[in-house]
């Protein structure tokens, strides 16, 4: 067998996504979907939890619900992110009307988890699972 012409590309480390969602039924479904796409997924159930994780762990993308039910809102997390020197990418979700300003991409609840995963993959230049 010839020793030439075989190139092995380094395997890319999966991006880390933080899912911030107060409804646990939505949180585990979208988190499972994102894991199936190969992402490393962290979960937070509230704004204070999200801020704790963001201060402790490097995160490449947030999937952030603006309509968090307790202890602060998704807007607290948005303000925290925007104050950073290098703001983390976000996909925002809500059951309410479209958010004001430039919060994009925005996904209205109820949503298909695959839609969020596709947006995350596009944002992070990550291949869909069939190509992973």
């Amino acid at each position: 067998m010839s020793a030439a012409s075989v190139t092995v590309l380094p395997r890319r480390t999966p991006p880390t996504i933080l899912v911030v969602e107060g409804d646990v039924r939505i949180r585990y479904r979208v988190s499972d979907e994102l894991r199936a796409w190969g992402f490393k997924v962290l979960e937070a159930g509230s704004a204070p939890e999200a801020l704790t994780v963001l201060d402790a762990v490097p995160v490449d993308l947030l999937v952030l619900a603006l309509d968090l039910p307790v202890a602060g809102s998704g807007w607290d997390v948005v303000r925290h992110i925007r104050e950073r020197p290098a703001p983390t990418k976000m996909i925002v979700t809500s059951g309410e009307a479209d958010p004001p300003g430039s919060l994009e991409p925005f996904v209205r609840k109820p949503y298909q988890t695959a839609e969020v995963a596709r947006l995350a993959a596009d944002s992070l230049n990550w291949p869909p699972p069939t190509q992973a």
Partner: protein
Amino acid sequence: MSTSSTHLSAEADTPLQTILVVEDEVLIRLVVAEYLRECGYRVHEAVSAQEAILILQAPEVSVDIVFSDVEMPGEMDGFGLARWVRSNKPETQVILTSGAERSADIAGTLCEAGPLMKKPYHTQEVVDRIKQLRATAKRF
């Protein structure tokens, strides 16, 4: 899309096992859940007993073991959750964890709910305890 096919079993000759980690301290929950995933388990996370029950009641979810903190805010603590599991999901096993000595004593009344682990614990201890619990269950 189904996620089960993307996860490896913790042991090659056993079916995939699902662990529900119930912990209100997010960084502890994150570390334990990630460690268990790296060991090959499928893991769900809950912030509270109320969230845990919502996951356990979901028709598409089948949990083998609940790994829960005892002290949690809200109307139900880990002991209450263990009682709920015993009444409503008797096939699901429970591991309780706590830093309080008193909790260890109370746990004696919940022997069916499984052993109680004292904090701080090493994440490998969690995996060892789960394997031990599953091995015990297989004998009956």
